[in-house]
């Protein structure tokens, strides 16, 4: 079954050529010209992935992503004509998984989409499928790599696919430092020149979901000048 991909872009020509190219790649592409119509479409038909332009009409891309994130964990790639630090970080903070700046080649965007579609991290050979991340609260925080969920007691903690892969990679090598470069490579399949801010922003978002106190992280700790490490209780 082909993936349903929603392209949210107000420039008709770019949207058309994106549809043509992505259909060539085997995606089932639907189009939206505004954030509002994109949100409508998502309610009426199931969507697997999204490409969102940040510069839209009335409702901008950031708001659109935040709205989508309230009820969906699907992979989102942001397209921006501006390579400004501020925009990119804001897009990622809003909940996007990855970004690409205009002008891009189709093969660049399909590579990003392919990486995001991979459902979970390769499980480490000897890693147990259920890992207890935190025992300090009333109920334990348990990562189930095979089930693809993170639970606090009976409740499922909602993670995006990218966040889930990120925490799985860290948990698979718990106690060891993983550099930003390694994480970029394993989670986003970015090469050497990937943007390390992707990792930082996602770690920040992940912490707000798993850490008891995100301002003083205990589970996912920063190792200055090296990278990140997941500490088991």
């Amino acid at each position, binding site marked *: 079954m082909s993936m349903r991909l929603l392209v949210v872009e107000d420039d008709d020509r*770019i949207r058309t050529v994106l549809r043509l190219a992505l259909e060539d790649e085997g995606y089932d592409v639907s189009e939206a010209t505004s954030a509002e119509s994109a949100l409508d479409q998502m309610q009426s038909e199931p969507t697997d992935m999204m490409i969102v332009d940040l510069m839209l009409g009335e409702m901008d891309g950031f708001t659109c992503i935040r709205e989508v994130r309230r009820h969906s964990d699907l992979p989102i790639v942001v397209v921006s004509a501006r390579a400004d*630090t501020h925009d990119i970080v804001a897009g990622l903070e809003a909940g996007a998984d990855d970004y690409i700046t205009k*002008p891009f*080649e189709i093969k660049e965007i399909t590579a990003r989409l392919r990486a995001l579609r991979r459902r979970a991290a390769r499980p480490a050979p000897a890693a147990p499928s259920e890992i207890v991340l935190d025992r300090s609260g009333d109920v334990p925080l348990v990562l189930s790599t095979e089930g693809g969920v993170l639970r606090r007691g009976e409740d499922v903690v909602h993670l995006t696919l990218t966040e889930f892969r990120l925490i799985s990679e860290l948990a698979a090598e718990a106690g060891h430092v993983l550099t930003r470069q390694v994480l970029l490579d394993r989670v986003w399949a970015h090469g*050497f020149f990937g943007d390390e*801010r992707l990792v930082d922003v996602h770690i920040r978002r992940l912490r707000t979901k798993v850490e008891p106190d995100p301002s003083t992280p205990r589970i996912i700790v920063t190792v200055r000048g090296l*990278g990140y490490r997941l500490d088991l209780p």
Partner: protein
Amino acid sequence: VKLFQPYGLRGRVVLGFGIGMMAVCGAFALTTYFLARDYMVQQRERSVLRAAFSDAGVIRDRMRAGADVQTILHELELDTASAVLVYRDGQWHSSSPDTRPSVVPARLVREVEAGQPAFVRDVVGATPSMVVGIRVPSVSASIYEVRLLAELNSTLRLLGSVLAIGAFSSVGLGAVIGMRLSRTVLQPLDQIAGTAAAISGGELSRRLPDTRDPELATLVGSFNSMVDALQLRIERDARFAADVSHELRSPLTTLVASVGLLKARRDQLPDRSRQAVDLIDAELGRFRRLLDDLIELARSDAGLILEKGSPVLAGDLLRSTLSMSGRATTLLSGDLEVPLRVDKVRMDRAVTNLCDNADRHGGGLVALTVEDRGDEVRILVDDAGGGVPPQDRERIFERFATGRSGRGSSSGTGLGLALVAQTVTAHEGAVWCADRPGGGARFVISIPAAAR
């Protein structure tokens, strides 16, 4: 003024004050000295004359009374610096055995013997003296009052040395005053120079602080409004470049993606169409690079913010640079384990630009070498071409320099080396072009070493 030119403004002020003070104080000291000397000498002369007349009176009266000359002389109450000589009937009589008749100049004797009271200043031994001679006809004798002026002389010497010391120390005082004054006067200039340097170094928001000094206020005002205008202009230019680039991105995205679609169906196209698609593809690639470079330069002009992530090994970075641009990683050698703290993406682009430049204009890239020099790291990009003539070595880092000289082939953007220079400068480093030992050009990027 020309003479003092090499000393600088401050030096000139100090020197001027020193010399001025010396001249004023010197003139003052000389005037004081001569006035004081004349006054003191006049005083002495008057006192010697008075003493001479009174002594002459006493001697005359006593001689009339028939007293012996020598006895009279002994009876006179004279101080140690004074002596009286009497000349009578071709014979000299002295009040003191130390004072011989020879102290009286012959000229004086002649005048006095001719009946003229006379006065002379002379030197007795090493001591200046005054001699006053009076002819007393009633007793047919000449009386000479001799006064040694040793005390006057030492007073004058003391006065002279005090004044000289004063005049010379005034040079130092003048220099100190000059230094203080020049510092006060030049301080606003220093401030302007510092601010101007900071502004040209990129701190466009720097301004001179307001001043209440009316003369400086004009200068500060026009300086600040000049920088305002400059900043406005730079920002407008940067915004214009950013806007243009941004507007170009959307159509370029459509073009790039559309050509991508055509390329995917390249096999289905007739031969001539295929050639056309290939041409469009190549030109589009160049156009895209040009736009990327322009945007990057515009951003640098507006103040480049480097994204220095975690340190990377030089070998890892440059190996990726070579492989990403489709070059053999075997070209890389040197100190590959040295860590770099750089904006990876921008440094990659800079090195790629140098490699492209080597391929395009330098007969091909032959080596990429890392040199660890302790506090700096050098990246050497060697090519096999004819080298760059010395007079062109700076110019080629200017924008569109290759295009102007006609050196550039159709594939260069003309911005590559300018971008390299800007990136390296933003990393507080330097880039230059030299000769490669054995022929060809060597482009050198030097950046400060990462803290280890």
